[in-house]
């Protein structure tokens, strides 16, 4: 191995990367943009569900019951005002109790209670509203359920401390930053093949092994530095920085392998970008799963970035240590080896 050939190649690649205005711009803008998006998003989750209530004859009694139960609500002056509050999303749902409800129940009749829901209400919200109304009816009829409810939280109690969306985005930021930098490098490799400069390099004593090592080192330097810097700015290194940095390093290796594959299938910057967008979407799926729990099922584990996204999520958002994530990191390392080898193999075939 001719180690002396690595530094000049890395310096050359970094020089070319930053002399390409597009990539230089994307790098700086990306860093500022992602940090800006993160900081602009709310830092806490509003866990309060507020209800609307229209109860013309039973207002005093209902208000007392709801206040006793700790339910947050707004009263409406009319059914129409209640509907409007729901439409405007000022309240999560509206409950309209009929006039003379208590009297109707006392007379053995079944009064009709209307629940107004926004068009995008979740089924859980709909079911909860029905349960609240049924419970309310029991209270109003003077026969509350004769039970005691004890709440026991299994695992960390996140009530009042839910992970805000911006922190759920940390894995996505990491994957996108890593991939964007890799796209730049993949484009440079494709351009080197196209213009023949790579052929010029390989006519020197430089071996293909040194060439790939240098490209890998440049890619790792670019991707890791950028991702670590972003994490530092947005506070992603507050918990267990060593684990996060290790995950980013392994993530950088993973996208380097992907970059080699992109460079081997792309003929120029445009085609690399085209394939690259596909790769970003695919590798972004596990990170979307973190952002929107329940939207991505177990199959996402076959996507290499799952192990990066899951590690960052667990460590940055739940303060996990090495124990719950070491398997993730080990699998990621294995994926890195396979992707790097595969990328280098395919690119080498293209060069020859």
């Amino acid at each position, binding site marked *: 191995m*001719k180690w*002396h*050939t690595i*530094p*000049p*190649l890395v310096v*050359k690649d970094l*020089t*070319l990367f930053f*002399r*390409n205005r597009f990539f230089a711009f994307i790098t700086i803008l990306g860093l500022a943009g992602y940090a800006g998006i993160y900081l602009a998003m709310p830092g806490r989750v509003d866990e309060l569900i507020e209800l609307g209530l229209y109860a013309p004859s039973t207002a005093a009694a209902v208000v007392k019951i709801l206040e006793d139960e700790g339910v947050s609500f707004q009263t409406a002056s009319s059914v129409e005002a209640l509907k409007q509050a729901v439409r405007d999303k000022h309240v999560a749902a509206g409950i309209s109790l009929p006039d003379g409800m208590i009297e109707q129940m006392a007379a053995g009749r079944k009064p009709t209670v209307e629940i107004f829901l926004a068009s995008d209400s979740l089924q859980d919200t709909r079911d909860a509203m029905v349960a609240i109304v049924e419970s309310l009816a029991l209270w109003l009829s003077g026969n509350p359920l004769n039970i005691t409810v004890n709440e026991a939280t299994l695992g960390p109690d996140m009530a009042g401390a839910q992970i805000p969306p911006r922190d759920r985005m940390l894995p996505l930021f990491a994957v996108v930053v890593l991939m964007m930098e890799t796209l730049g490098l993949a484009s440079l490799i494709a351009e080197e093949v196209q*213009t*023949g*400069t790579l*052929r*010029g*390099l*390989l*006519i*020197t*004593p*430089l*071996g293909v092994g040194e060439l790939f090592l240098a490209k890998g080192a440049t890619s790792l330097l670019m991707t890791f530095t950028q991702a670590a810097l972003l994490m530092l700015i947005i506070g992603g290194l507050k918990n267990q920085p060593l684990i996060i940095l290790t995950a980013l390093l392994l993530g950088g290796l993973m996208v380097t392998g992907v970059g080699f594959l992109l460079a081997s299938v792309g003929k120029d910057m445009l085609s690399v970008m085209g394939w690259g967008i596909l790769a970003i979407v695919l590798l972004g799926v596990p990170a979307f799963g973190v952002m929107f729990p329940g939207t991505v099922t177990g199959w996402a584990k076959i996507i290499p970035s799952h192990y990066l996204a899951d590690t960052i999520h667990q460590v940055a958002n739940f303060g996990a240590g090495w124990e719950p994530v070491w398997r993730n990191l080990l699998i990621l390392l294995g994926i890195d080896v396979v992707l790097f080898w595969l990328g280098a193999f395919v690119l080498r075939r293209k060069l020859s």
Partner: protein
Amino acid sequence: MAQQAIVADNLMYRYGQLVAVDHISFNVAEGEILGFLGPNGAGKTTTVGMLTGQLRPKAGKATLLGMDVARQPEAVQAQIGVCFEIANLYEQMTGIENLKLFAQLFGVKNFDAQALLQRVGLDSRGKDRVAGYSKGMKQRLMVARALVNQPRILFLDEPTEGLDPVSAEAIRNLILEEKRRGVTVFLTTHDMLEADKLSDRVAFINQGEIAALDTPHNLKQRYGKRMVKAQVAAADGQLENREITLDTTETAAALQTLFSQEQVVTIHSEEASLEDIFIQVTGRGLA
């Protein structure tokens, strides 16, 4: 007897079913300039590819400075300089940065980029990005890049193709300078005049085979036809051409008749060009 710098022994290469180089053999002595001539697609670049370790021969063996190219490509590449036909420089880097990069890859100590740029007449543009260079300047930088490791063998692929006369002459002078330093030059070209000027020997390659290999002088002797061409004034005042072949028993009498019986306006001797010989040997032109 001079040591052989390049030995091509029965080299063959094919792309799929197409045989690009068909079992060719030749030697180039140290310090010699070999002009490797042929039309586009004749197998010139493929031959250079095998000699420089870029392509592995399908058959045969290439030896440079006593080293088997296929077995020791990196050791061979440390001793050679290659100037490609198409400029493959880093356009967003300066001339100096391009040269320094290659010097570092070759492990050259105390490399003086400015001195090398001066040799190719680019010393005043060394700090400019290559993207702003003219075609001739890029080609000169390509030649300079091929010289960063002070190679013992220089492979030049169409080094003056499409250049202005001044740039072309500068590169020719540089090639001759390297020859005087003892460097072996493998010059690939389809410019017959250039090959004639520079080469100690020339090889004609056609359809992957070497059709002829000798000094330009010997080729002209063997295949050429020396003659005298004259223009004479006819009775009606028009000019007419006369050709008298030299080296025959009738030459002296024909020349005497020309001068005694006709009014000679212009006269000059003419020897066969390499291009004429190439056409004669291969049955095709160089285009």
